[in-house]
């Protein structure tokens, strides 16, 4: 897997605050969630990788090139959607995409074709001739993502891409981003919506107080950050001895009855899900679902941030 972004001992010194040194990389085909509290250095990292700001020390490589020295080549296949973008209110979505398409070097014929397709992709076809100033916040956000997709790029850098987008739009964007990655693209996405990151991303880069706290797979992060893990078991019926049997499975520290099943606490590092599933199926309780609790990333994130503060 080739690396599309590399931070090498990169430091940005703002005088009153220092971000870094950051050393990490992003491989082709990844969907990386860039996480961290406000002011932790996420936006600085994004701006460094796009060559918008200069590192004080170290370097950043984008597509194997220095984005400051070789800006045009390095950014040739990169799309960026900033957080709460202020797009030019006097333009229409079509005009704005024609502008950004022109800047990525699309010829006239291809430009029209891509504008139509991209507007369709983000669900803005019906608004192509509205002034941007008349669009809702969610529509502007869709347009911000659309302009990043002009080219098309092979790397998408998205700063809070789901802000202001309605639930149907979120689902639509998720599938759009997944399709983008399955077509060979890479996504770096900064977000505060951890459930969104958990759903969409396959790895994380967590920055806190300018330092990299974690870089790797989500699953590994949760295992590292949490002492124990929660497994949700959804059942049709509740046989008498099943709860006691589950409590006896190696790795299980506690199991409690919930309204629709059991909540099982397991020691981090152990994975008793298949054992539990076997027991449930054997008892005839009717297994509806089994899996780690969806809120684990939130807990792991908070634990990691607290841990890095101490």
């Amino acid at each position, binding site marked *: 897997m080739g690396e599309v972004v590399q931070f090498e001992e990169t430091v940005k010194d703002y005088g009153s605050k220092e971000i870094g040194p950051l050393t990490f990389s992003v491989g082709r085909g990844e969907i990386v969630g860039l996480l961290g509290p406000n002011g932790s250095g996420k936006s600085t990292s994004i701006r460094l990788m796009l060559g918008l700001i200069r590192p004080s020390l170290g370097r950043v490589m984008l597509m194997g090139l220095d984005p400051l020295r070789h800006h045009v080549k390095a950014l040739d296949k990169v799309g960026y959607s900033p957080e709460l*973008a202020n797009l030019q209110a006097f333009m229409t979505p079509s005009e704005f995409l024609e502008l950004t398409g022109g800047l990525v070097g699309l010829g006239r014929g291809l430009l029209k074709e891509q504008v139509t397709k991209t507007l369709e992709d983000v669900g803005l076809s019906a608004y192509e001739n509205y002034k941007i100033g008349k669009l809702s916040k969610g529509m502007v956000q869709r347009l911000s993502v659309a302009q990043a997709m002009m080219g098309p790029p092979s790397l998408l850098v998205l700063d809070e891409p789901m802000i202001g987008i309605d639930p149907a739009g979120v689902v639509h964007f998720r599938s759009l981003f997944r399709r983008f990655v399955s077509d060979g693209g890479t996504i770096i996405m900064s977000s505060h919506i951890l459930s969104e990151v958990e759903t969409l991303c396959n790895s994380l880069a967590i920055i806190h107080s300018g330092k990299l706290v974690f870089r790797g797979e989500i699953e590994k992060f949760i295992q590292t950050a949490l002492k124990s893990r929660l497994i949700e078991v959804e059942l049709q019926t509740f046989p008498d001895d099943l709860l006691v049997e589950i409590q006896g499975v190696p790795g299980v520290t506690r199991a409690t009855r919930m309204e629709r099943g059991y909540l099982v606490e397991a020691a981090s590092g152990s994975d008793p899900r298949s054992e539990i599933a076997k027991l449930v199926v054997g008892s005839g309780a009717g297994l509806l679902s089994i899996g780690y609790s969806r809120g684990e990333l939130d807990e792991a994130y908070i634990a990691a941030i607290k841990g890095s503060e101490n």
Partner: protein
Amino acid sequence: MNIGKVRTLAFYELQRTVARKKVLALVILTILVDTIPYYFLSTAGSSSIPLAARPYLWVVGVFLPQAFFLQFIALFISAGSMSEEYEQGTAEILLSKPVSRDEYFLGKFSGGFSLLTLVVVLNAVLSVASSTLTFGPQLSLEILPSVVISQVFSALVFFCAAFMIGELVRRSSLAYIIASAVFFTSQIAGIILGAIFRLTGNEFDHLLDLYLPTSPVNSLPLLVARPSLPSGATSVLQLGGINAIESSVAFSIGLIAVYAIVSLVITRVYFGWADVAKKIS
């Protein structure tokens, strides 16, 4: 350098500037300046205008906005050219595209300057049209193209200065204030130095006056036009308070070029070196 991208940015800058209401208001004001004086001259004061001067009254409309309105439009267009993009956060989007800093710089500059050129041309066309409609056929119009070119060229001083200030301070309101302050200070200093020189004959005051940024701006178009205009027309200009401080076309061109180049070099160097500022509004 990709000319297509420069053209795209220049066209965008042109659209963006026109969409700003304050620039549009100044353009409308210029149009009024070009039409209203002729209306009043034709209704109230036509008997006091010598017949010999009437075929040259187009000079009033062409030269009258030179000292103030055209320079003001120049600095209003360019002071926000870079700074507004930072304030709105659009610079971040545009500069994250595969566009070099040179292409962006040139696109923004040429887009704004094209609009200013259009305003100068509009001013000239309206002046000729208004004067022809009110006072009959106008003469010596063959010098109009060179006058327009000299006006466009002289507008470079405050256009480039405001462009530079906008990039350096990266706040549009502050850039307008500073650029306007520079302009007014220069104009007022010129008036004071001129008055002192006339009173005392002190050459140093005159020398200072010659090097003020407003001096070549006010003088060049007049120096270009004067040799081809009859005395009747130049006396009309003098009555309107339109005088040349400089005496040499070459010196004026040189001084304008120096002011413009210095401003542009500072802007380009700073733009290449500084970080792209984050959105502030």
